[in-house]
């Protein structure tokens, strides 16, 4: 009975793990190098597919061929660039450690009220 329950719990956590993975691929933020890669990849892939599509369509004399090749290119590029794949997150951002941050307090902005004659401390 206990072993059955344990197995059940492990299955649930495994499922939860993969759901977390899918969700993280969709909505977690991308690091800076990844963003640069994503942008360049998108531009390069779309332009290449457009060029190939146009030349193929023109040579074959078929407008539909051009549209189909380009549509396939758009779908492929979207799958590659829009979700937050792991290879976009290889250079993760190193935020400052909290204990380190405490040693260097944030400078307070000067309390700027109307310039009245206030006695300086």
């Amino acid at each position: 009975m206990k072993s059955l329950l344990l197995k059940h719990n492990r299955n649930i956590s495994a499922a939860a793990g993969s759901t977390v993975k899918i969700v993280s691929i969709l909505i977690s933020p991308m690091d800076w190098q990844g963003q640069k890669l994503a942008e360049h990849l998108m531009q390069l892939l779309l332009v290449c597919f457009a060029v190939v599509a146009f030349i193929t369509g023109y040579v074959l004399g078929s407008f539909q061929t051009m549209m189909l090749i380009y549509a396939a290119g758009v779908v492929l590029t979207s799958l590659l660039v829009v979700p937050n794949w792991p290879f976009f997150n290889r250079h993760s951002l190193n935020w400052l450690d909290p204990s380190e941050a405490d040693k260097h307090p944030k400078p307070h902005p000067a309390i700027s009220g109307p310039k009245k004659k206030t006695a300086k401390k």
Partner: protein
Amino acid sequence: MHSFGYRANAMLTFSITILALMCAMASVSDNFNSPSPTSEVQVLNINWFQKKPDGDDEVSLTLNISANLESLFTWNTKQVFVFLAAEYQTPKNALNQVSLWDGIIPSKEHAKYWIHTTNKYRFIDQGSNLRGKNFNLTLHWHVMPKTGKMFADKIVMTGFRLPQAYR
């Protein structure tokens, strides 16, 4: 590129911009096509030629229209709209154009045309000027592209004449 929504939006915008550019290039490529269409029309018979009760002349013709419009078609052509117009001059109007027949050619395979028909639309004059009239039969066509600007051209065939008396 920092979030899913941003990347999806950038993807969509960029891909549509490039699509617009491709369509513009396809339209420009049409200018490299120099078409050489041919056409021939024969008036086989004047079926009847009468003056209507309201005073206008009307003619019914049987025509034999043959045309080869294959060279008009490019990869960017959706269809060709072709019509035959009778053109003549009267004291009242410098140019009268009456459309006698039209058709749509959907593809290059159908572009070698041969048709034997009476006029699809009535040949009615504004007035009573058609007796003994010399007229031209002009084949006009409009090339409708898949993307881009539509352009039109024509072939003028001269030498047709209506009889002097009503029949």
